[in-house]
């Protein structure tokens, strides 16, 4: 094997800043998509448990359709398929402000919102029904019961599965490279193309993802302990 290692392409020369730029874009993309996913997930997850059939049906359609189709297809759909149908002004604004990024963010957020929804629904369903009934008996409306009783409890119950879902979102942000969002995997690939240093580039990219994921997982274990409801859930095993 006559491969000559040259790790300096990662931090010097033309390709020097690319990894960091990619990391910044990955984080930006993931954080925005996560906010969208959490919002969609909480609303649709709650809607799937309410006593009104129409709302339940809407939420079920959203969840079942969006999470059962590959993210890549959604990326292409939002990036290529939707913009031509938008009003002229919106389309121009998007073209001026980085259409790939927003399409990718939207695809990632809507897809993971559907997956997050399932996590939140199972959290809500694990709360004893009597909590809801007690809230109504205290004179809260259904909406108030969800807002001040059910959802706060559910969110504390679902920290572990929501964490692993959030990490999935972070890892899946790499799919945005297919619509030319310059995120981490895209930049890794770019370094490989320009310098032909494939092993160095992919090692660095892989390690960054690994450190991010393991780091977040460790932090969230702490958070989980802090937010656990004492005496309610059996820990471990």
């Amino acid at each position, binding site marked *: *094997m006559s*491969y000559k290692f040259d790790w300096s392409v990662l931090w010097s020369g033309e390709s020097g800043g690319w990894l960091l730029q990619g990391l910044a874009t990955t984080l930006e993309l993931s954080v925005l998509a996560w906010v969208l996913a959490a919002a969609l997930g909480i609303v649709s997850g709650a809607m799937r448990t309410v006593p009104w059939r129409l709302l339940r049906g809407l939420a079920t359609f959203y969840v*079942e*359709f969006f999470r*059962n*189709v*590959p*993210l*890549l*297809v*959604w990326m*292409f*759909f939002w990036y*290529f*398929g*939707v913009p*031509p*149908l938008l009003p002229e002004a919106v389309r121009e604004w998007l073209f001026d402000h980085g259409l790939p990024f927003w399409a990718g963010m939207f695809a990632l957020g809507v897809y993971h919102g559907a997956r997050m929804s399932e996590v939140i629904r199972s959290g809500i369903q694990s709360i004893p029904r009597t909590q809801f009934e007690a809230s109504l008996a205290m004179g809260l409306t259904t909406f108030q019961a969800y807002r001040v009783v059910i959802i706060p409890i559910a969110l504390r119950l679902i920290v572990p599965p929501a964490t692993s879902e959030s*990490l999935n979102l972070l*890892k*899946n*942000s*790499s*799919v945005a*490279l*297919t619509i030319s969002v310059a995120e981490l*995997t895209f930049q*890794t*690939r770019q370094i*490989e193309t320009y310098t032909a240093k*494939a*092993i160095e580039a*992919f090692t660095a*990219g*892989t390690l960054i*993802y*690994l450190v991010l*994921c*393991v780091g977040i997982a460790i932090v969230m274990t702490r958070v989980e302990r802090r937010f656990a409801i004492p005496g309610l859930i059996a820990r471990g095993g």
Partner: protein
Amino acid sequence: MLDLSVLVNNFTFLIVQGLLGLGGFTGGTLRLAVPAIVLGFVFGIFVGLARLARARAISLPATLYVEFFRGVPLVMVIFWIWFIVPQLLRVPIPEYGVALTAFVIFEAAYFGEIVRAGIQSVPRGQVEAATALGLTRAQTMRFVVLPQAIRNMVPSLVTQMIVLFKDTSLASIIGYVDLTKAAQIVNNREIRPFELYLFIAVVYWVCTYSMSQVARRFERRPA
């Protein structure tokens, strides 16, 4: 506006070539997904059993394997095999081989975790009772633990199979002609992205949703 003729005219290419893989190109979502699911699961059984092994020399590498692959994106794994393995081995590997290898290696980590959780879900007393009856460790595993473990695993297994089925769309990144790539090819000629991508979304949905319905039937079956 919506032009469905593009779907009618290219239906054969999208479904026969893209989904089934019967056509001029080496391709097909199913031709990739089915072996990937089977091999990934088989490999995953070994990974899961290795994680439970008493010898640390076996369980530690298996744990590292699982934690590593669960911490990196699948796209990255595909690129490793696509760009680096041919350089090291000095032989070109066709897209199909790259994609299949990447999926099996990657998904085995996830299947391994499911197998491990399934085995751990069998109450300890079952193993003790089997030992008391004079079964060897291998017999205990074969006749007592695995039959119960597999039943517990079915829901997560099917979920993971659906995930893997959807993930096969990523093989289109390296040029493998699956359903997603077929839609891209048609779109390059016809420029009807909205219709085409929505159509393949529905095709994927029909496949994954029917998989989940089959799973639901299994779950309902009394143990």
